[in-house]
């Protein structure tokens, strides 16, 4: 991304960057957790549980926090969502469990479910306190393609159910977007790897890093060599804008920059533009915009082609961007990138008008969604994603799929975990019947 004098590292001091990338939602103390837990009404058929994609018994785990039974509380969470620790950090709770909380009706302030979930799960995961026991060995072996939330969730549940699993992970580290994608201030202190270590510690899961489908092995081979296959390959490629100037230097895929940011040991060494333009309206767009600002970019503009209601990013995320100093523009579509060799700006059309808008830029981040890598043409695909049934089964016998790569995926960690869990339960049934 270098090659322009405005793009440089060290825009802020190490102390400033450390402060900017500290825990977005610091954990609750024991006292805070007890007081907050007391706010839970222990609802019948709790709306928060219904709103949780993984169906965690939320009043149940909160009740156990109240009674100082933190280990039991963690088990209530993790048995439905083995990534309950990460989800406590990254779930858009304001549109899930906390939106459904009846306290909103009573006092417009939901129970802090996310923070309570973190309070319950952190000690178990940090101390690697094993809460699960594997069923007796089935003698079956399952291939899981993808080391992200869907794949790891599927692998863990399969291991608990007594099957052996091999996880093929395209990156050098497991965790998928938890490791490479999510904003750094949401998951500090290497939590993604700590959580993966916890998941793998159940046993029976062999992790093979640097193993991408199509690079040395194909789906057909997996089907021959394993009793079942789960595909949690995610969406590895970024969408293009398809406009002039997209190949200029300084025009970058947001997910690649975020991955670099997540993997660096010293964020002050990262190249940061002065005038940054982000194109897109989802979580990734917010993440790259906010992180650019927190790394010291002077101007960060986020431009989305539709309105705030249509944004993939939640209201909370939009507010986070704005309070972090990001300017959000709606109803504007990029027409072309300007510049000679290196990008210098972007021209936008203002929707439903003849007006235009021009923003200076030395870095432009594309965050308009990702698409699936090839190699799965033998399966039914709709709009670029794999078609699955309610058990996450694909069109091919013996092959399941879940996470962002399937139709209906909503690009949330919590949904991917649920897909992996459902698939594992279905695979278990399939293996025991066969």
């Amino acid at each position: 991304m270098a090659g322009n004098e405005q793009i440089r590292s060290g825009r802020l001091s190490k102390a400033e960057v450390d402060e900017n990338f500290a825990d977005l939602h610091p954990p609750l103390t024991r006292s805070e957790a007890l007081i907050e837990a007391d706010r839970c009404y222990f609802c019948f058929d709790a709306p928060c549980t219904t709103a949780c994609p993984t169906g965690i018994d939320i009043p149940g785990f909160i009740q156990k926090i109240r009674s100082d039974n933190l280990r039991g509380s963690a088990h209530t969470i993790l048995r439905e969502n083995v990534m309950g620790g990460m989800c406590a950090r990254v779930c858009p709770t304001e549109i899930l469990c906390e939106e459904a909380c009846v306290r909103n009706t009573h006092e417009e302030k939901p129970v802090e479910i996310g923070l309570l979930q973190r309070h319950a799960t952190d000690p178990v995961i940090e101390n690697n306190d094993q809460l699960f026991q594997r069923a007796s060995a089935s003698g079956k072996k399952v291939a899981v393609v993808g080391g992200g939330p869907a794949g790891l969730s599927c692998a863990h549940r399969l291991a608990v159910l007594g099957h052996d699993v091999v996880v093929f992970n395209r990156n050098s580290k497991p965790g998928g977007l938890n490791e490479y994608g999510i904003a750094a201030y949401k998951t500090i202190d290497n939590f993604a790897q700590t959580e993966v270590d916890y998941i793998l510690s159940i046993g029976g899961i062999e992790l093979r890093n640097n193993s991408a489908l199509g690079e040395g092995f194909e789906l057909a081979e997996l089907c021959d060599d394993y009793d079942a296959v789960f595909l949690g390959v995610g969406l590895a490629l970024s969408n293009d804008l398809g406009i002039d100037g997209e190949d200029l230097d300084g025009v970058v895929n947001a997910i690649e920059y975020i991955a670099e940011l997540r993997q660096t040991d010293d964020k002050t060494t990262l190249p940061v533009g002065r005038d940054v333009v982000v194109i897109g309206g989802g979580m990734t767009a917010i993440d790259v915009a906010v992180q650019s600002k927190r790394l010291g970019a002077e101007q960060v503009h986020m431009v989305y082609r539709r309105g705030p209601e249509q944004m993939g990013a939640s209201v909370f995320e939009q507010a986070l961007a704005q309070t972090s100093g990001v300017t959000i523009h709606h109803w504007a579509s990029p027409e072309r990138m300007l510049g000679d060799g290196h990008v210098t700006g972007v021209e936008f059309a203002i929707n439903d008008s003849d007006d235009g808008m021009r923003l200076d830029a030395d870095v432009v981040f594309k965050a308009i969604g990702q698409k699936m890598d090839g190699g799965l043409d033998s399966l039914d695909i709709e709009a670029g994603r794999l078609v699955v049934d309610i058990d996450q089964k694909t069109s091919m016998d013996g092959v399941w799929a879940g996470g962002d790569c399937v139709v209906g995926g909503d690009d949330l960690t919590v949904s991917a975990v649920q897909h992996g869990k459902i698939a594992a339960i279905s695979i278990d049934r399939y293996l025991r019947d066969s």
Partner: protein
Amino acid sequence: MADLKTEFLGIFSPNPFWLASAPPTDKAYNVNRAFEAGWGGVVWKTLGEDPPIVNVSGPRYSTIQSNDRRVIGFNNIELITDRPLQINLDEIRQIKKDWPDRAVVASVMLPMNEASWAKYLPIIEDTGVDGFELNFGCPHGMSERGMGAAVGQVPEYIQMATEWAKAAASVPVIVKLTPNVASVVPPAKAAQDGGADAVSLINTINSIMRVNYDTLTMYPTTDGMGTHGGYCGEAVKPIALNMVAEIARTRETGSLPISGIGGITDWRDAVDFLALGASNVQVCTAAMVYGFKIIDDLVDGLSAFLDDKQLTFNELVGKAVPSVTDWQHLNLNYIEKAVIDQDLCIKCGRCHVVCEDTSHQAITNRLDGERHFEVIDEECVGCNLCVSVCPVDSCISMQHLTAGSDPRTGNAITDEKLTWTAHPNNPMRKSD
């Protein structure tokens, strides 16, 4: 603002709130602070014979708390004053001189022999105290030595000691009763028969708070061993109210003045005691939990309440007593049904699940696939459980059926009163 200046047994105080005989009234330092804060009177911490008793130098108190550590119940194993009698007497004399408008009553606990009472009461009275309160209530420690609750549990002892006290004292004598009895009426009657000018109640209730989950010993302990204490605080108020009302509504004891004690924390608690027959109140635990400043709310709240209800203090006293009766006199023809205000309902479903699991399956949970909680009149017995668990104030109310028939039983609604005493199902019914 309504005048709260009160007279109890001829003892005047600027308000009806006295600090009960307990640690807050152990010495002049505390009592001065209490009077500066505005308390109407004190019952000095119980005096005994010299040499003074010895208290443990370890945990004397423990509590039951909510998760945000609000104190709900309180336990203590402290005994009576552990200071030499003369020090207490000197301080009482000075306090009475410094605060002539406040009530100062001396609590006393003496062995069951007349000579002790004859010896000590005149000495104490000489300090200028306005009255005596005989401690026949403390359930721990002193009761093992034949005093406190050991006296209060035997009406004959109460009467005997009260007679000795009356013979030795010229100021009013209040008998403080223990709740650790099957019925509080016989002890109250015994006090009255012994000549008591009033009773005060309740003292604390025998209690063990919990175990220590690490050591699996009782909690708290003194050097590894524990003993039961006396339970008090907000949690005991209903027990105290019942006992006050029992004395107030019983014909033989109904005219005996009562000083109400037990969990009074805010002015509404005081209203409870006063309306159920007490004519002044004593407070301890709330002060030990929050400090003396709570007197501001007690005085201000009670005064505003009296203004609002256009009652004088004396008109409030005993106001609710006629509404207390025996179960057998309740009207079995009277029908209420719960009604849920759908505009206030936050749809937590607590009413549904408790009714479904533990009562009468009388609240829905769905309407057209949506969460919806509504009372099924055909099943509702009017038990008030839903009202009791609803987290929203006034969302569920009880509505009296005045016409038609009860959808549950099909019986016609009638104004005619039917009590168990006359009910056809009662084999012992009294014929009209």
